[in-house]
């Protein structure tokens, strides 16, 4: 499984890429591989606010539906509408194709997330 450096990761296999006070959120390679061909993505509304670990999106393959959870508290500032027409982008390149961009509410919560090194170890040991 591909793990990109310099991203934060959750145990639910979301990734988070910080840019100043904002961050992009997407699905890690492992998650898209587990789901298989993704055929549907549900996106939140801009300005919606979510707490950490709250479901803000759903991705579905033919067989299964999975919620996508917020890695930290935050407000949606952008959604990747390309995914509505072409959900398979999440399979093709899960790191290039982010799901939402958020404004991070509390940057200290980043400390609770895994680094890429920790996430690699997590994949080896737990999964």
């Amino acid at each position, binding site marked *: 499984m591909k793990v990109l450096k310099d991203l934060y990761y959750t145990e639910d296999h979301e990734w988070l890429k910080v840019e100043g006070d904002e961050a992009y959120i997407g699905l890690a390679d492992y998650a898209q591989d587990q789901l*298989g*061909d993704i*055929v*549907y993505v*549900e996106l939140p509304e801009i300005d919606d606010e979510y707490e950490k670990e709250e*479901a803000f999106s*759903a991705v*579905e*393959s*033919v*067989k299964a*539906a999975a*919620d996508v959870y917020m890695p930290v508290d935050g407000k949606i500032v952008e959604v990747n509408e390309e995914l*509505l027409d072409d959900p398979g982008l999440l399979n093709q390149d899960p790191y290039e194709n982010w799901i939402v961009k958020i404004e991070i509410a509390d940057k200290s919560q980043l400390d609770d997330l895994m680094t890429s090194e920790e996430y690699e170890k997590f994949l080896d040991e737990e999964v």
Partner: protein
Amino acid sequence: MVAKKTPLYDEHVKLGGNIVDYAGWFLPVQYEGLIPEHEAVRNAAGLFDVSHMGEIVVKGEDALAYLQYLTTNDIASIETDQIIYTMMCYPDGGVVDDFLVYKYADDEYLLVVNAANTDKDFKWMIDNKKDFNIIIENISDQIGEVAIQGPKSEKILQKLTDTDLSKIKPFHFDRKVNISGVECMVSRTGYTGEDGFEIYTSKDDIVKIWNAILEAGKDEGIKPAGLGCRDTLRFEATMPLYGNEISKDITPLEGGLKFAVKLDKEEDFIGKEALKKQWEEGLTRKVVGFEMIERGIPREGYEVYKDGKKIGHVTTGYMSPTLKKSIGNALIDINEAEIGKEIDIMIRKKPVKAKIVSRKFLK
């Protein structure tokens, strides 16, 4: 209970199958992917391991009389080497199982039943044997079974046998077909809505058949196909799945299977009285097809609402790989079941608009 392995387990692993525990059996959900496998069956051919299916033999001078009493369809209507789809019901009209009956002779029949129901069915059959002069034998453990499905099935399988397969008509079978040197029973049946064959042989020989078919079908684009697409294919083709469209709580009439329930059959059968009453009084609910109007994928178990009132639930739902549309079946209140009516499917606690359409999605 630990899941069982079919004789083809090692082949699934070799082919990179994504193995899960299904109905007590280790079987692949998919190999390459659900969508390419689904498309292979619709456009070329796919090969399924269905060795988990149960096989129960009924023989003896009362075999026909017993099956007429046990099941809903008219077993007397088929000839030797012919097959009929039927169900057995509880006295209240709920379904014990749905299955195919193969007529070997006037006094011998084979029932091919759902894997998860095999033990329950066998017990039900024994419990209802009464004074019929018959022997009931569960031979499931001795049999291996594969299904080749898709428009190129005959062309591929014909390469491996001297028997003229075009002579085996739909819902018929030949008990002695030599495939790659192995004696098999071959029926023109399946669970995908496509042409195809189901091939039965001893569990020791099924690996040879599996590999021979995959090899023979290479140029035609055959793919090994998993349980994932087995469900999307049967659902698109309006075929029921036990536990979803019919169950102990959903009668065949509610499930839209009246064609297999012969209420005017001369003989009494278990459930006849209850089903007759249900039909005469009129159904209060039934399984309908629907198509999403707004974005969303319906899933089994999701609730169905109309004007804020719950009217039923989704029995099967998918983003259809063939139609590229979100479609489903739902068991709903008969008053809302008219084609064209709008309903709401509750997806992640939100009502999402859909409209009722014919269950014959493929037309």
